[in-house]
């Protein structure tokens, strides 16, 4: 049978079919009729997790360890149930930040750091290299098995030159394929719908092929599950595989593999690519959460039967268990089934290599090569017109380099390791990303320094405890290096670091690397500080679900640039047409004027995000910074979004303050208004009172004058009486006008005050002397009680005299003649001098106490007797006392007299 020609032909036909699917997928995507936008295609694309390792390696491992292969699938099952919480958050972050790869994600989280993104890329490339070599080994071995059967001995690779090695050609074909799939054009979203469609098809195909072989072995060769296991139980070596005792590393090893697989399903670069970057709708996660575990369960159902079937079919050691998938059908004469099995393995391997290399090429291009090139001034990339060609070139070159690195590793260690051991190397490398990502999306305090410390420490430990020993075991490093430790230092033996023994290699490495990684991340984060942009990014990542409902646009660009410059920048990476399309698509998003010369900060942000999709966050920032002049990051912009809560709280506090101020102002205004109204009313009353007060004497003056004028023959005694009345009334008028002028002057502060230090006792003596006549006339007693020592005050003597006179004459006025008694007391208190004038008159109503100090207010008197005053005396007194910094008030109980008091500040030296 010419299998030597047929197999390559069928393989190429299969790859052509894949390419056709990818082509249709891309075309449908261009016309907005996506065929991958459903949870089933999404789940199948995540099943790229099942590689040739699953396909061939699981059987091989099951044949020697029983259920030892299972943690690799139980881990993802457990992790999947957390996807709704963790993966959804990562997807949301990736979409808002336009993340293009796992390196981009970690770099963005830690302040768009190019260094961290580059570090992640290096780890990914070195870590994934064994994994790719695993696929090459599987495809090349399965091909050889198929064409050479029944001669199943695999030639030693060291003996053949690479040009005679079919694995080399497998590598080249896979690289070409990945280039055709993943780098046909540069896209701002960095999504590859065609590739996802092809991957989903491959997942379906490998599942069907595996089930076909499994069903054939279980039901064709043996009597179903029960029959097969019954027969196996009779073989002592096989029945020993039926308990956990067969699992290498025991329960500890079992647990660490579970943990590794939990991390790998999310953080292997290719898994990140299909689950996060290629995700169309985060709602698809909801179904994938249980569909993916179901897929894993189904594809593993027949692993044990095939493994046991193979061990029972072939004599011990004659056939590599890793090839049972092909050798059992071949041994049974089922060539077609074997070819189907081979194609299933091919699809598993190609799927992995395509996605992994595309993911790695994006990372290498965006996070390693471009940032480096952009910094090399001599290349002047800032000014190059069109960079799309360069980008594609870098990516294509990367794919070839990555695949060839895998081939190199395969040539170096290919034979000494089983498929699974090689795969676990890569899993352990991918697990190093877990702390930086998980801490990064749940703990704002994780810093750039912490992340780079953790990543590098974990990676170094991984390299020392797993990668280098793998090279040593293949003879590329001296075996003594492993056994006695480097330079004979036993404590540093890579498999028993610091004397830790009793663990299998994977668990041992996992423990030390995670200790270094998590420890480094946490410890350094705690002692270092974040820069402004780190804090911004940390908040955006951790609070991604809280972002909703408020504008995401944060004005991180403080400088200025023009729309034209931004557009030209975008065109260099997206092409002229792509840039125009993107920019015109931006207009409806806001009221940003694209014709305006100076670019709106939102447009700058938009351009940065647009470029992030093509060249990664770190490079995009460098590029945008090259056209934005001025400060790159305004501190106000940073503070604005630093902490939503505190910002809102601050804002509401400011609002509260404002409203309190407004309220206070309103109250003041209202008071002032009321006061104004009162004053207005008082003014009206004042005018009407003054008119009244003026008219009364005027009326009587006029009446008597007219009588005198018209009656010249009036008796002279009557005439005398009338003239006296006229003179009296005129005096009263004069007094009134003087008082009015006084009040007005005091109120308008037009009075000149002649203040000097004075003994108040002398003022009181003077006042009492001048009222003695009045008191004698009214038959009122006066009792003056003065202290022996002087009571010094700073006063205008004449004005104060006026006050005391006013109080004394008021007191006399209200006393009944003959019974009246007025007591004047001068006392000294703390820094004050008090004068009180008490009478035993009728007293004052409580509600009148304040009113009597108003102008023209005169206490109502019993009977018709009108007090002989102007009604201004107390008002003037109050003005004078207030002006001297004192107070004046009245104490009274109706029927028991009234006491008028005033105090003045003492002026003792």
């Amino acid at each position, binding site marked *: 049978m010419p299998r030597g020609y047929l197999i390559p032909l069928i393989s190429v036909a299969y790859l052509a079919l894949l390419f056709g699917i990818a082509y249709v997928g891309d075309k449908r995507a261009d016309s907005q009729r996506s065929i991958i936008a459903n949870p089933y295609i999404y789940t199948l694309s995540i099943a790229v997790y099942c590689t040739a390792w699953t396909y061939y390696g699981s059987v091989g491992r099951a044949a020697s360890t*029983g*259920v030892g292969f*299972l943690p690799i699938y*139980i881990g993802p*099952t*457990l992790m*999947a*149930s*957390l996807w*709704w*919480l963790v993966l959804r958050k990562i997807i949301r972050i990736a979409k808002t930040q336009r993340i293009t790869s796992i390196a981009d994600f970690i770099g963005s989280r830690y302040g768009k750091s190019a260094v961290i993104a580059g570090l992640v890329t290096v780890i990914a490339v070195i870590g994934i290299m064994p994994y790719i070599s695993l696929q090459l080994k599987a495809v090349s071995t399965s091909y050889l098995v198929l064409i050479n059967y029944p001669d199943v001995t695999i030639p030693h690779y060291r003996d053949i030159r690479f040009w005679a090695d079919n694995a080399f050609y497998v590598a080249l074909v896979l690289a070409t394929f990945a280039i055709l799939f993943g780098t046909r054009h540069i896209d701002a979203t960095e999504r590859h719908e065609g590739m996802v469609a092809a991957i989903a098809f491959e997942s379906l195909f490998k599942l069907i092929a595996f089930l076909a072989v499994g069903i054939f072995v279980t039901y064709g060769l043996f009597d179903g*599950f*029960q029959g097969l*296991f*019954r027969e196996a*139980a009779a073989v002592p070596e096989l*029945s020993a595989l*039926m*308990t*956990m*005792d067969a699992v290498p590393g025991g*329960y500890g090893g*079992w*647990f660490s593999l*579970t943990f590794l697989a939990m991390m790998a399903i999310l953080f292997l670069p290719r898994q990140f690519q299909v689950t996060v970057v290629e995700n169309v709708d985060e*709602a698809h996660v*909801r*179904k994938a*959460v*249980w569909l993916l*575990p*179901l897929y894993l*369960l189904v594809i593993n*159902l027949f692993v*044990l039967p095939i493994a046991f079937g193979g061990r029972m079919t072939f004599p011990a050691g004659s056939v590599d268990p890793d090839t049972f998938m092909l050798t059992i059908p071949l041994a049974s004469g089922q060539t077609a089934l074997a070819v189907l099995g081979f194609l299933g393995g091919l699809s598993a391997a190609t799927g992995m290599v395509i996605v992994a290399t595309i993911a790695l090429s994006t990372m290498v291009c965006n996070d390693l090569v471009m940032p480096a090139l952009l910094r090399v001034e001599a290349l002047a990339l800032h000014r190059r017109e069109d960079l799309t060609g360069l980008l594609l070139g870098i990516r294509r070159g990367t794919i070839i380099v990555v695949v060839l690195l895998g081939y190199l590793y395969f040539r170096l260690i290919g034979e000494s390791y089983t498929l699974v051991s090689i795969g676990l190397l890569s899993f352990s490398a991918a697990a190093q990303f877990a702390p930086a990502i998980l801490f990064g999306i749940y703990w704002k305090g994780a810093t750039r320094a912490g992340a780079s410390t953790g990543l590098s420490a974990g990676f170094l430990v991984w390299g020392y405890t797993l990668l280098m020993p793998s090279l040593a075991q293949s003879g590329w490093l001296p075996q003594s290096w492993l056994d006695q430790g480097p330079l004979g230092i036993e404590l540093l033996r890579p498999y028993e670091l610091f004397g830790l023994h009793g663990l299998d290699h994977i668990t041992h490495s996992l423990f030390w690397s995670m200790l270094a990684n998590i420890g480094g991340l946490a410890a350094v984060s705690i002692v270092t500080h974040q820069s402004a942009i780190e804090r911004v990014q940390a908040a955006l990542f951790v609070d991604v679900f809280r972002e909703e409902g408020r504008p995401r646009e944060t004005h991180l660009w403080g400088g200025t640039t023009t729309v034209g410059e931004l557009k030209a920048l975008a065109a260099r990476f997206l092409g002229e047409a792509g840039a125009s399309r993107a920019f015109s698509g931006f207009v409806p998003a806001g009221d940003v004027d694209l014709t305006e010369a100076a670019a709106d900060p939102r447009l700058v942000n938009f351009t940065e995000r647009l470029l992030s999709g093509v060249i990664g966050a770190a490079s995009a920032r460098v590029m945008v910074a090259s056209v934005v002049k001025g400060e790159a990051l305004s501190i106000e912009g940073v503070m604005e979004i630093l902490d939503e809560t505190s910002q809102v709280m601050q804002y509401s506090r400011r609002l509260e303050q404002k409203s309190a101020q407004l309220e206070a102002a309103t109250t003041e205004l209202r008071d002032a208004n009321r006061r104004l109204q009162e004053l207005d009313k008082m003014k009206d009353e004042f005018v009407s009172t003054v008119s009244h007060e003026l008219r009364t004497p005027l009326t009587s003056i006029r009446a008597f004058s007219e009588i005198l004028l018209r009656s010249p023959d009036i008796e002279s005694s009557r005439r005398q009486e009338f003239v006296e009345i006229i003179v009296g009334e005129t005096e009263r008028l004069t007094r009134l006008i003087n008082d009015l002028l006084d009040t007005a002057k005091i109120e308008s502060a037009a009075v000149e005050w002649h203040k000097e230090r004075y003994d108040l006792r002398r003022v009181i003596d003077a006042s009492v002397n001048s009222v003695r006549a009045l008191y004698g006339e009214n038959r009122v007693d006066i009792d003056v009680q003065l202290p022996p020592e002087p009571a010094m005050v700073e006063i205008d003597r004449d004005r104060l005299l006026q006050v005391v006179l006013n109080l004394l004459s008021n007191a006399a006025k209200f006393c009944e003649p003959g019974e009246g008694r007025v007591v004047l007391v001068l006392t000294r208190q703390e820094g004050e001098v008090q004068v009180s004038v008490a009478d035993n008159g009728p007293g004052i109503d409580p509600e009148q106490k304040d009113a009597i100090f108003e102008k023209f207010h005169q206490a109502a008197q019993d009977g018709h007797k009108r007090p002989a005053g102007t009604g201004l005396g107390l008002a003037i007194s109050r003005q004078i006392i207030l002006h001297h910094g004192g107070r004046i008030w009245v104490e009274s109980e109706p029927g028991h007299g009234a006491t008028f008091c005033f105090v003045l500040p003492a002026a003792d030296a």
Partner: protein
Amino acid sequence: MVDGKAVRDRLIALVGIGILFVNYPLLSLFSRGEPVLGIPMTYLYLFVGWALFIVSIGIVMGREGLRIRREGDRRDGNSGE
């Protein structure tokens, strides 16, 4: 009514139970070679437990889907008013 937080709690509880059952010491109780229903007990335990776990997640997520749809309907209904 089940809210988003309850779903989160259920998922976390499920993972906890899952990790507990497929590890030492519970796993060691079932680490026996003798067949149950013709299948070695270890294998049967792991695969049946695995299937039950998938069914449980399916139920929790199915309810979450219903809830999201109901909320969506309510929102649509409100916006139509």
